């Protein structure tokens, strides 16, 4: 597997979604994260697998401890936030999909496996919020 350290040496924000498989909001957390790390802020962010923190993967643990992290959770249980904190990660921000939903109440995402148009729109709205948080963190706020 390609080493995480071979990504750019400049400061990066690590964006970690919960990716909960049972609810549409879990899929939205994942898709919003991809929108950030593959598109909106691709040079200054990366993601990692949440489960690697729990299985004790040393590279992943060092990554979250040495960089600012933003978690993106699909439900109030906030599994991503909890696990990053437990791993001793540098948690600099926590967002929830419901935060995007509250500003977009007309959107009713239903599909979990592949996001429907409402789900895709909500993911984009959430990604904008994450992008703003990334910018704030990189500016030192």
């Amino acid at each position, binding site marked *: 597997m390609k080493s995480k350290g071979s990504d750019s040496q400049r400061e990066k924000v690590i964006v970690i*979604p919960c990716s*909960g498989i049972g609810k549409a909001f*879990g899929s939205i957390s994942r898709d919003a994260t991809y929108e950030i790390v593959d598109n909106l802020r691709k040079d200054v962010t990366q993601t990692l697998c*949440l*489960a690697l923190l729990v*299985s004790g993967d040393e590279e992943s643990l060092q990554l979250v401890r040495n960089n600012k992290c933003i978690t993106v959770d699909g439900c109030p*249980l906030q*599994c*991503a936030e909890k696990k990053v904190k437990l791993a001793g990660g540098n948690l600099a921000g926590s967002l929830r999909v419901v935060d995007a939903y509250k500003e977009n109440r007309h959107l009713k995402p239903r599909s979990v496996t592949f996001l429907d148009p409402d789900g895709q729109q909500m993911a984009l709205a959430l990604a904008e919020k994450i992008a703003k948080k990334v910018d704030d963190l990189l500016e030192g706020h």
Partner: protein
Amino acid sequence: MADAQEKKVGIISCSGEECVEGTISRVATRLVLGKLRPNETVTICLPLFLAGGKEEREFATDYPTITVDGCDKMCAKIATERYSGKPASSIVVTDVTGNWYCSRLGPRRKLDEESQAAARKVAEKVAHEVDEVLERWM
């Protein structure tokens, strides 16, 4: 009807954000749940399971599980063994697709045709394992 005597298998998929095999694992699991074996399976949300979700852990302790991992780091299998017990079966997507490493540079967000075909193949394998597990359980 709605009690612990009903035979069900818990499917635990890795979340695998970093590579396309993680997405394949996830999609394959959803295909099993939604289409191939909807009455025989239940999904266990891995992040919730890891975070101590009571229902997830109790189900995985009381019922047989099948783990589906994107790569040979096998996070879902390791977590299941740690918190609930040895899964009845474990599948690794890279074994099914024939990749020998996790292809992080692949289209991990929206599966292309090749990856969708891989997801269907993995789903069929999982469904087959579900049948075997239930048969052993009878």
